[in-house]
């Protein structure tokens, strides 16, 4: 049973560019959450998708957007990249009827130059 998979593993972009990160949830999970983790800090909640809709959003600007597909996989898009967007982006999946136990992927390391 595959766990949560994220791609790509690493990414280097320049300021102003756009990036798309991808996530496939754990089998049987219907909810996907995205987190941003800066070095030395805890994960910060970006948003959560359930039934292809953004259900909840953290304190992130509209430059951060996402999508969930019918197979529950998800994308995170970031437009007009800033240096401060450099971070580890984590995708987590869970089961909506559960207690919000999150299963995390290994993350995508984004560097903005």
């Amino acid at each position: 049973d595959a766990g949560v998979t994220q791609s790509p593993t690493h990414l280097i972009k320049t300021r102003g560019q756009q990036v798309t990160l991808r996530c496939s949830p754990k089998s049987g999970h219907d909810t996907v959450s995205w987190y941003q983790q800066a070095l030395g800090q805890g994960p910060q909640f970006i948003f959560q998708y359930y039934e292809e809709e953004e259900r909840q959003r953290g304190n992130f600007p509209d430059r951060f957007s996402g999508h969930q597909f019918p197979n529950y996989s998800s994308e995170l898009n970031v437009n007009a990249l800033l240096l401060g967007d450099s971070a580890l982006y984590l995708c987590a999946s869970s089961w909506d009827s559960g207690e919000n136990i999150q299963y995390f992927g290994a993350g995508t390391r984004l560097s903005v130059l």
Partner: protein
Amino acid sequence: SQQGEEDPQALSIQEGENATMNCSYKTSINNLQWYRQNSGRGLVHLILIRSNEREKHSGRLRVTLDTSKKSSSLLITASRAADTASYFCATVYNTNAGKSTFGDGTTLTVKP
């Protein structure tokens, strides 16, 4: 600011010793969870404690929850070098629309 705050920020112990880390939070919760993260990797769920529970055990892990003080502690007994990692508490206040709110973690180093 983060809902959960762990302390200490860093902890260094010898193999075989016990490690205790604490988490404080600000608002009422449905449950509190502890996660572990090895350097630069994804987080791994360790244990969940519900708001109506006071203590839970899982292997060498013991978690307590004091809702009156809005605090939790994670005890790792008989630590091993492989326990070296960052540990985060995550609070969940609504499991139906839930985000998990993480603190900045405790970095544990277990020396062999």
